[in-house]
């Protein structure tokens, strides 16, 4: 049987992102709000162990600017 690795990519809609920082509070290992209030994605590909954190970040974004895309 062939092994498949599902990786999840974090996609930020930069036109929507206000830099509210909710994602950085929910998942500080994945997001950081820079000193100039812009969002930095620390890891744009997440594995299974970080998936729940990434989902939490997507959920709390008040601008609905984040989404997760599965990549094989």
């Amino acid at each position, binding site marked *: 049987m062939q092994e498949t690795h599902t990786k999840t990519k974090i996609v930020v809609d930069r036109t929507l992102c*206000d*830099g509210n*920082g909710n994602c950085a509070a929910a998942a500080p290992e994945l997001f950081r709000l820079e000193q100039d*209030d812009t969002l930095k994605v620390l890891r744009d590909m997440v594995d299974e162990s970080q998936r729940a954190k990434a989902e939490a970040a997507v*959920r709390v974004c*008040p*601008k*609905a600017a984040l989404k997760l895309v599965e990549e094989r």
Partner: protein
Amino acid sequence: MTVIASADFQIDLFSPEVIANLEAVYKRLRDEHPVYYDRDYDTFFFSRFDDVWEVLRVGDNALLATESNLPTPEYLRTHHNTGAPPFASTNPMAPGPKLHSPWYEQMRAAHITPLRPKRVAALADLVRNLARERLQTLLPQRKFNLTMDYAGVVGVTVICSLFGLPAARAREIMDKVNELARYDPRKSTDLGAFFAALTGDIIPAIQARRAAGADGSNLLIDGLISYRVEPEGRALSDQEICDQLVCAMVGGIESMPKVTSQGIMELWRRPEQLKAVRADLDANLPIAVQEMIRYCAPAQYTFRTAHRDLTVAGVHVRAGQRVASLLHSASRDEREFEDPDEFIWNRPIRRVLSFGLGQHHCIGKHLATLEITALAHEFLTTVTSFEFSLDEAGKNRGVMQRGWINLPVVILD
């Protein structure tokens, strides 16, 4: 699971009878008609937290405030769309709330910088000092309106400083905004009234920035002056810039003071909670402020018009029909919050809708939160003992922006 209202249930959310009994109506809607279609207004009203959450997250120009996010009932009754209305004009550039992507986002990006979290955090000392100075003036009076005289004056002074307007204009601007927001059953107010009334205050601020070279030292205005509409490279006129800034001005003046004063009053009504918060003000107040925002936020609803057929929160909406998100009802939804009508300073709050959500999510959220926290902190630190004279208090009852506009506090110690 959502249910469409049956023919035997009819209600007019703008009627004085409903407005007089709004909380009970919201509860009935949530329980029995969570998606209520009103034929006269051609509008679907969403009252549950989960549904409002879903509606406001719709993107891709499917649901827009092209007509108005705060339309009057008269407009809704007399204007029914057959199909999607045209997008808002971009030449001249329509008022911010009416715009679609990518224009909405570009206008927002051109003036959001001073309202972002770290920029706002840098204003903490300014707000705290303004609050302290204001209390020094007010405390000798022993009795004053906590909403307007305290939180309102500080809030509008901060707004004037962001706009580069003289602080001497603050009170007059505040009174004007509050007069517009005041409910009067004989007349309706829509957002357009605020735009018309504040133009004369905002345009001089824009002209002053042009005269000063718009070098970026006023982050609220200069970005809009240097913005160019592509591809033609057109600069925005004073009026077009003004139309992007009205919401920041109104929001900063009208909403925050109501939350601050009622929030302090709700704590006072519950002495054991006031005592618990005071036990460690620095640690506890930011938590209590989240509950103040959930419980006291004045905005009742926000409208959108469908620009294409879509299914949202289980309902099929045709292009041209409207959806209304009942924000206050969502904040009192027992499906999201246990014992929602009770004020509990440290209740778990997983999600909030008080600032709206999605494209129009409140641009001043961080500033409002900072101001409420600083104002409550200074008041509770400076005043040991106080009570409210609720017999004399006055509430804006309407259905647009509700809340305590006159909340007399009596200083005891």
